[in-house]
């Protein structure tokens, strides 16, 4: 039976709604649940088979049950057995099945001939890609994604670093999570949150640092709202520059100026010390103090804040890991951030700052801090991440259920694929780095490649890689080919005219794009490879709480669309056939050889044989060996098949029995903590099992408003759409609910400019102009001096206007701060005004 699209939509809607009903009973207290009859795990619909998969969208990592009939996804239900979402889904999640069925799916490889994309056969497409890479294997960049699956990331990583000796592999998570990584590394010595979502069920106070979980991580926020609805007391404190749907549910709103977070976190530490309310025992046992430079190298006595700032400005920072300082020196530096001084820097009233500090001073309270892009897309992103860890460490609000810092990710495998597999220019799988000889040797060992195969020099970070692509070859632009998979840099890079669109004029540069729909990126592609997506292929994701999640292919991709992982491996095979020496291991065997049980090589690089074996399982279990060094032990593939994700380190308690870890570094929860230690940061930067409390001074954003451009531009997501809208704009309900971008203004700023609701206005930054409708007193209200524009709408490419300044350590750009002006169309643009003056 061929299901009509109309029927499909009806069925999807119907079953999704059943999932909704199921969620009602499963959420909430046991008393509430037991008052209702038990519901089936998933709707019973004749002819529909069901399987588990993590949701395709954000980093929360909800599980859905996918209903399949006649090789089509026909229904989606929240997965009641999933710990993350317990049957609940957000507005995007309920519609996730429909992302497969947009009418303009790419189904045939295409190459650009005389400026036009023309359809070609797969064999030719693989050939073009392989020959291009063969010809310039050192000028080739691979740009993948926090939505790539773990095996996809691992295959790309091994091809680049283990095969081509080329470290120019990056992922879009650089734009999203890099500062959280450098924050964790410099504070704890190892990446990723030690806490987990269970904390949300136990905390007394939830502090949101520039975070809007009601729209961006609705399922997590609903865990807290649900507790409130049951009469539990959970205080929500929202620190931000925009009054959002989250703020509506918050008990306190701390209105913050751009970069105020740096001062606020320092102020909490200042107050804890001044009132002697910091946790002496915790600090003594578990903390060291650190800064960019140790002033005692130059000064005989303790120096004050301004002297320190001038000193570091003159001498420069010493790198990500800085230098040790004494507690006394830390105390002196941080004493600058009195509530009054901080009010001046952050805009938050001193009284509210004292209230916030008193929350941390109260040992009887359990506190969770949540953050995501507000702190990470920040030119002092590493610093502010350190500072928020600081306040939890100083106050001892760390390592108990409901008590600790939790960073959130925006993509479903930003952790699993990018941070854990290390698909970044400086990294190797399992928390290793290319700069360390021992790490290179370990990777070369696992890959059985000759010593010296892995290049010790980090490649280009994302912004630099695209800058080099867009720079003419004769002017030093030494990246000439980039292969993009599972992401849309044409819309999501900052300053896209400079970092992406400039490629259009450079005829010798080449862009390969694996995609599912036409996007701003395929528009400039020279070779387009149609990709399978989500449950059209096998996959493994890893969410924000270290949870690794596996799913199987359930339906056939449309037309000739094929798995991204297959594409990588087919090109790898073609490079081998072309004689690239890097595609052989040190025994002369093919680098990606997979043998069947009889010892015969499986020709999985031929599409018709790709699913003869489970290539994902083979790659994942190979990757798994890398994960033990930093105690990030992922479970074996076959174990993941049985679970709705498992949180690493996954411990084999007895042969064949695996147990996940909820809290890292905490005795009783994490087996790697020594008996009696309580808390042990066993990957400490200082090798003494202690975490680092950092002094990081306040600094202003890279671009601040001035007389010409007098407002600050913040970009971000909306609840209906995910990232660049490639998927969600194809879902009729979501597209209808939010069809186009807008500029959200504070009513006072609008009034000053004679702008009323619905006016089409001109939005201008130093990089360009865009016309958008103004939305005033709509969904959210930015603080005075700020405007907000969502980035999902490809018809309104706001990233043409954003700034490409990056954090010095994480190289992550800042999408939340740049100078902007908004003018009526009948008024001159700010620049023509300036010329007139």
């Amino acid at each position, binding site marked *: 039976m061929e299901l009509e699209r109309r029927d499909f939509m009806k069925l999807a809607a119907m079953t999704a709604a059943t999932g909704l*009903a199921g969620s009602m009973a499963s959420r909430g207290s046991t008393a509430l649940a037991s008052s209702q009859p038990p519901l089936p795990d998933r709707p019973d619909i004749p002819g529909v088979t069901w399987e588990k998969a993590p949701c395709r969208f954000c980093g929360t990592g909800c599980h859905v049950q996918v209903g399949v009939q006649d090789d089509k996804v026909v229904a989606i239900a929240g997965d009641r057995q999933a710990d993350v979402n317990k049957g609940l889904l957000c507005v995007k999640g309920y519609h996730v099945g429909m992302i497969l069925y947009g009418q303009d799916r790419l189904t045939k490889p295409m190459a650009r001939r005389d400026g036009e994309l023309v359809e070609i056969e797969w064999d030719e497409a693989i050939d073009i890609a392989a020959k291009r890479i063969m010809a310039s294997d050192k000028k080739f960049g691979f740009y993948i994604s926090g939505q790539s699956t773990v095996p996809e990331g691992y295959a790309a990583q091994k091809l680049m670093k283990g095969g081509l000796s080329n470290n120019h592999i990056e992922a879009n998570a650089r734009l999203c999570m890099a500062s959280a990584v450098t924050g964790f590394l410099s504070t704890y010595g190892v990446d990723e949150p030690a806490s987990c979502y269970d904390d949300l069920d136990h905390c007394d106070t939830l502090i949101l640092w520039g975070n809007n979980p009601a729209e961006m991580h609705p399922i997590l926020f*609903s865990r807290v*709202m649900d507790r409130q609805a049951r009469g539990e007391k959970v205080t929500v404190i929202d620190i931000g520059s925009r009054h959002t749907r989250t703020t509506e549910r918050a008990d306190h709103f701390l209105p913050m100026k751009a970069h105020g977070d740096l001062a606020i976190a320092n102020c909490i530490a200042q107050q804890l010390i001044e009132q002697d309310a910091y946790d002496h025992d915790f600090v003594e046992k578990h903390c060291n103090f650190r800064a960019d430079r140790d002033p005692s190298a130059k000064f005989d006595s303790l120096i004050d804040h301004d002297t320190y700032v001038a000193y570091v400005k003159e001498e420069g920072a010493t790198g990500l890991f800085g230098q040790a300082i004494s507690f006394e020196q830390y105390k002196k530096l941080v004493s600058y951030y009195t509530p009054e001084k901080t009010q001046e820097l952050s805009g938050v009233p001193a009284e509210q700052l004292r209230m916030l500090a008193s929350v941390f001073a109260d040992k009887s309270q359990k506190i969770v801090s949540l953050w995501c892009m507000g702190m990470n897309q920040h030119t002092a992103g590493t610093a502010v991440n350190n500072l928020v860890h600081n306040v939890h460490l100083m106050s001892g609000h760390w390592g108990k259920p409901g008590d600790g810092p939790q960073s959130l990710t925006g993509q479903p495998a930003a952790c699993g694929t990018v941070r854990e597999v290390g698909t970044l220019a400086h990294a190797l799988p399992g928390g290793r780095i290319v700069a360390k000889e021992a790490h290179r040797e370990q990777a070369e060992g696992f890959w059985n490649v000759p010593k010296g195969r892995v290049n010790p020099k980090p490649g280009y970070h994302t912004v630099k890689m695209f800058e080099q692509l867009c720079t003419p070859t004769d002017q030093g632009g030494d990246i000439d080919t980039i292969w993009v998979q599972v992401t849309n840099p044409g819309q999501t890079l900052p300053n896209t005219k400079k970092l992406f669109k400039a490629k259009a004029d450079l005829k010798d540069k080449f862009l390969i794009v694996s995609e599912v729909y036409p996007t701003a990126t395929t528009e400039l592609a020279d070779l387009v490879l149609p990709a399978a997506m989500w449950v059209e292929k096998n996959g493994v994701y890893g969410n924000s709480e270290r949870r690794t999640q596996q799913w199987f292919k359930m339906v056939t991709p449309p037309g000739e669309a094929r798995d991204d992982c297959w594409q990588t491996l087919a090109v790898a095979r073609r490079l081998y056939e072309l004689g690239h020496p890097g595609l052989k291991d040190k025994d002369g065997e093919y680098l990606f050889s997979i043998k069947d049980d009889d010892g015969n090589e499986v020709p999985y690089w031929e599409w018709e044989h790709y699913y003869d074996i489970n290539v994902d399982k083979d790659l994942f279990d190979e990757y798994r060996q890398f994960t033990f060094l930093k105690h990030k032990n992922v479970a074996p593939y076959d174990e993941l098949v049985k679970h709705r994700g498992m949180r690493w380190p996954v411990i084999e308690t007895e042969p064949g029995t695996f147990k996940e870890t909820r809290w890292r570094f905490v005795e009783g929860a994490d087996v790697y903590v020594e008996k009696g230690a309580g808390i042990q940061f066993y990957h400490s930067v200082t090798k003494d099992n202690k975490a680092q409390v950092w002094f990081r001074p306040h600094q202003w954003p890279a671009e601040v408003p001035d007389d010409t451009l007098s407002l600050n531009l913040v970009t971000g997501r909306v609840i209906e759409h995910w990232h660049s809208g490639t998927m969600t704009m194809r879902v*009729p*309900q979501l597209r209808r609910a939010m*069809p186009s971008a807008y500029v959200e203004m504070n009513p006072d700023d609008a009034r000053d400019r004679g702008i009323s609701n619905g006016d089409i206005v001109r939005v201008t930054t130093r990089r360009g102009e865009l016309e958008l409708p103004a939305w005033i007193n709509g*969904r959210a209200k930015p603080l005075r001096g700020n405007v907000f524009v969502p980035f999902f709408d490809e018809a309104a490419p706001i990233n043409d206007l954003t700034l490409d300044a990056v954090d010095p350590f994480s190289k992550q750009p800042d999408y939340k701060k740049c100078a902007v002006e908004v003018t009526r169309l009948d008024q001159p643009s700010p620049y023509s005004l300036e010329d007139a003056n």
Partner: protein
Amino acid sequence: MGKLSRRELLFGRLRAGVSRAVPSASTPPPPDDGPKVAVIQGRHCLTYRELMCSTCYERCPEKGAIVIEQGIPQVVSDLCTGCGDCHDVCPAPTNAILMLAPRPTINEGKP
């Protein structure tokens, strides 16, 4: 200077400007057979599942015709003009908004 009515804002005119070949997002308006009033069905509305959604409230062109109480949108029937905007934008898996004929008052007696 371009100016959109509230109804057009983010909903009508701009949609035409998006070039990509994407299935049309419009649903047929409710048949015009007399006055209508919006009714939100709790069993389909996302806000009844502890999820935050206020799309209907945000897009309602009549001030006060949809209010949010404790996170849950409610239609004030006396102010609702029956335009159907809220029905058109509702993102719930099953559209939570019905456009019904206004309920006759008791004094009107039996239909």
